[in-house]
């Protein structure tokens, strides 16, 4: 059994930067517990002698010449930003009061 707790889901939500509601945390705890129970079976066959595959078609050394490519203009880069000023993305305070 995976035994996922609400505290653990709240912690994961914090890591993933999603402000889940208490109701969401509660329902996700139940769902994740069921899902993790079903998918934990990968451990049955993943023995130490089996190498891991991260990519289906292995390629190596994919290089390109070190020259400027067709990049976006500043205007294009900022066109979808929720807020921008002086050719930069604008965000609210980085640090909170207690920090």
């Amino acid at each position, binding site marked *: 059994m995976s035994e*996922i707790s609400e505290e*653990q*889901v709240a912690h*994961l*939500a*914090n*890591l*993933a*930067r*999603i*402000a*889940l*509601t208490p109701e*969401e945390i509660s329902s*996700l705890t139940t*769902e*994740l517990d*069921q*899902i*993790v129970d*079903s*998918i*934990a*079976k*990968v*451990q*049955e*066959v*993943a*023995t130490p002698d*089996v*190498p*891991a*595959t*991260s*990519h*289906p*078609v292995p*390629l190596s050394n*994919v290089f*390109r010449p070190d020259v400027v490519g067709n990049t*976006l203009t500043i205007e*294009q*880069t900022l*066109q*979808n*930003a*929720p*807020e921008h000023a002086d050719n930069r*993305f604008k*965000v*609210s*305070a*980085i*640090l*909170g009061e207690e920090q």
Partner: protein
Amino acid sequence: MNDIIRMTAADLATHLQSGEISAVDATQAHLDRIEAVDTDVHAFLAVSSDALDTARRIDERRAAGEKLGPLAGVPLAVKDVLVTTDMPSTSGSKILEGYMSPFDATVVRLSREAGLIPIGKTNMDEFAMGSSTEHSAYGPTRNPWDLDRIPGGSGGGSAAAVAAFEAPLALGSDTGGSIRQPAHVTGTVGVKPTYGAVSRYGAIALASSLDQVGPVTRTVLDAGLLHDVIAHHDPHDSTSLKDVWPSMADAARSGARGEGLAGLKVGVVRELTGNGFQAGVQSRFDETVALLTQQGAEVIEVSAPHFEYAVAAYYLILPAEASSNLAKFDSVRFGMRVQPEGGGTVEQVMAATREAGFGPEVKRRIILGTYALSAGYYDAYYGSAQKVRTLIQRDFNTAFEKVDVLVTPSAPTTAFKFGEKLEDPMAMYLNDITTIPANLAGIPGISVPIGLAPEDGLPVGIQVMAPQREDARLYRVGAAIEALLEQQWGHTLISQAPALGGK
């Protein structure tokens, strides 16, 4: 001409080349069809306001004697996961509502260069997470065969658009079956190419080691024609292959002539047949396999003992990659921004935005992926899943030593009803049991319609899989199956779909 919308892309292209039909007429006919039936079907999230102008320019170029590509003037529906400069690209999510990309996805650029006319963006499960389009933030697409049923997912919009004759061709993306399973439930054709054969640049990433863009059409030849347009090396995608591909359209034509079945070794995967498959899906599949035998193919049962672990491995690898890919939706550079009450730090703004902008399935998978990648769990879950991936590739390699292609039903059931699996994520995930192994191994797969299940009258598809880089083999075999069945029936399967909106 009423018949324009019912033509195959290949036939429409011939009429466009001869000048009997103009690109403007072809485009207008499909826009009219969307207007008439899409309130019911809801395949489209956006319809292009430029399409007629684009068509007019194609007609002018043709009139001026310019040599155009074989599909020039044919309308194209584009899955909303692919970014476009002339229409919003949302990937089915509220967090990207109204997003206008400053560039075109490479497949969209190649399509435009080939003279195809993008007419709209198709609906999908949010960020391609789902098998029913019920997870679209903009409401589900309905299956043209039965409006109370799902059109498959995540690319239900693209499949429904071609099934409802709203477009002859569509682009889809397939991470675990999102092209092939919708094809199965809508009586259409869908191809997931070899990983890397088609550029992923400008495809809003779900799981980068699994995602692949491919064609969604009504016939195998049409899929081949579109595949030939989009399968090119792209320096913008470092996983893009440099292979020079044979013409998939030519492979489809040779298959339709009946070439290639005699002596073909066809493997039936023991683990993906029988138990757990709907009776009518299984019987249509068995009949098709028998038909291949009659045509001189040698049918061999093969075992893939690790396929039973594929869904589990997939639901670790996909959420892990997705949780990382979706970190870019941070309320800073693009997309929605939500201010928490009383303001907050950039992190609090980010968390409030992602809470409001993501739907339940996206949150579920991000949290699951974050868990699978956490310290202390990484080896047990993500590490083990990557090992299963190796075992599944080995199963395929062993099978392909004995056979040329593998066949399975494209999905375990026909189209299910809305809501049926929405509250049970694992039941929804298991609907992709047949399609997931190909993504884990990077091999190509096609779904071709093979009839209607007797118990519910809904479409069934056969999936054909080939080794990496042998995409042409799928087209040869797929077109052969299609031609044999249509000869037997005396009509296409899609012609049996019920009329929509009284038309």
